[in-house]
């Protein structure tokens, strides 16, 4: 199968029940892909956000695609609480593994490095830790009476993000959004949507290569111009604030959220 695929083909590895990791709202969320997943009706995702999310997680939760969630925060930022997330938690329907940002980074770096755990400072005495039976406190073997948390490696089945460009060999330019590279290193497979295809190899120019994720880690790429809309793609376009305000307004109720899905997800938006 070629590495450059249609959006639907590219998303095929995101099967029901898989562990899917997505980046925070400001670094290239694959929103066009997210809408396609909702249209396809993916179910029971074990969603991990690196480390936070806004509209992307809220949409997936509201559309019933998410069985479990690991995150440091879900919020619409200046547009308020994430309404579908909030509603799902309050109704007891969504199991959340509350984390803290550096813990998610470190747990993915553990998989990146092929180690079973990573230590992390902080956390001792926090209820975040108290609600994480999978995290362990040990006495630092290199000191005396120095409790420290061990985070088990987090190995997602699929990493999904949106980036400015990729080449035909599957190399993806991520720039200084280096957590996208860590996600790809840590996940079993990686799917990327991009604004455009780059002629030639991104690895040939040392300046471009410095911001490039090698194709070795990438399973499939789909072209999706403005594929992060209505969220930002850094250095390319900002958040669509008016749209996010509209989302916040509609998604405040289940009925309004259904209207939003009808208008912006199930009917493809006229770009």
């Amino acid at each position: 199968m070629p590495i450059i695929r249609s959006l639907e083909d590219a998303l095929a590895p995101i099967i029901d029940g898989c562990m899917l990791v997505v980046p925070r709202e400001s670094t290239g969320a694959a929103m066009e892909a997210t809408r396609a997943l909702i249209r396809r009706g993916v179910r029971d995702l074990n969603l991990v956000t690196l480390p936070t999310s806004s509209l992307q997680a809220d949409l997936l939760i509201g559309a019933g695609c998410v069985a479990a969630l690991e995150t440091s925060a879900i919020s619409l930022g200046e547009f308020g609480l994430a309404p579908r997330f909030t509603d799902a938690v309050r109704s007891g329907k969504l199991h959340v593994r509350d984390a803290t940002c550096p813990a998610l980074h470190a747990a993915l770096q553990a998989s990146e490095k092929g180690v079973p755990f990573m230590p992390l400072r902080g956390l001792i005495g926090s209820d975040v830790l108290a609600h994480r039976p999978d995290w362990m406190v040990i006495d630092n073997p290199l000191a005396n009476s120095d409790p420290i948390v061990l985070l088990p490696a987090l190995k997602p089945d699929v990493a999904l993000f949106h980036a400015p460009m990729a080449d035909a060999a599957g190399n993806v330019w991520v720039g200084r959004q280096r957590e996208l590279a860590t996600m790809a290193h840590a996940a079993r497979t990686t799917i990327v949507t991009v604004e455009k295809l780059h002629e030639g190899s991104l690895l040939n120019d040392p300046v471009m290569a410095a911001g490039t994720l090698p194709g070795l880690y990438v399973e499939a790429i789909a072209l999706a111009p403005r594929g992060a809309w209505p969220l930002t793609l850094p250095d390319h376009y900002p958040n669509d604030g008016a749209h996010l305000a509209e989302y916040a307004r509609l998604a405040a109720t289940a009925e309004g959220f259904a209207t939003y899905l009808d208008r912006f997800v199930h009917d493809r938006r006229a770009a």
Partner: protein
Amino acid sequence: MTDAPLDFSTEEMLADVIAGLIGDLRHVAVGAASPIPATAALLARARGGGRPYVSLLQSRKHNFFTDGGRELFDCAGQGRVDAFFLSGGQIDGQGNVNLVTIGDYEKPTVRFPGSFGSAYLYYVVPRVILFRTEHSRRTLVPRVDFISAPGVSDDNVFRTGGPVALITNRCHFAFDRAAKRFHLQSVHPGHTLEEVRDNTGFDFDVPTQVPETPAPSGETLRLMRETVAPELAEIYPEFAKRVFEPV
């Protein structure tokens, strides 16, 4: 308490107080959706002639991190973030902050976004400034329902950081790490000790003479309006316009 007419806004006064708490550090970082702390950090830098380094995490221009989202946390772990800001849906008298839930964790009555980096940064940033404009018994509680990050830790817990102050729309509390309590540092002009007591859910120490929060100097107001405001406008255009542009 004086009723002197104010020729500055509350936001300007709060930013000035916070800039004083930042002082002469090497690096201060400010999270998203924090226009007043951002103003304070940029004011401290303007006063310091380029020092401290200021990382506004929401900005592209005032954000030098190039190693991805982990760099802020790694940098703090290295001891290279000297000051940071935290807020909370609830904050209690021991400096505990709650960014998660009110009520039962599994089926809460209120769900906040989540702990963000607080459960780490609160431990490793030497000067954490708590900032919560809404000063009420709803926000400042006897005991938080969920500890996203504790204000103090046992002696054997690795901790190089923690709270130094809590700034609200009514007053400035200093945090006493030894006593594990807040101490009322000053009450803002136009507010009273009684009002602070009435609206605070936790106990705190009160000096025999309660100072009024000092007004920003003319030089400080000039720096904020002429130097800081244009920088701030990149990230907080509405805020910069509302607070700093002459009516």
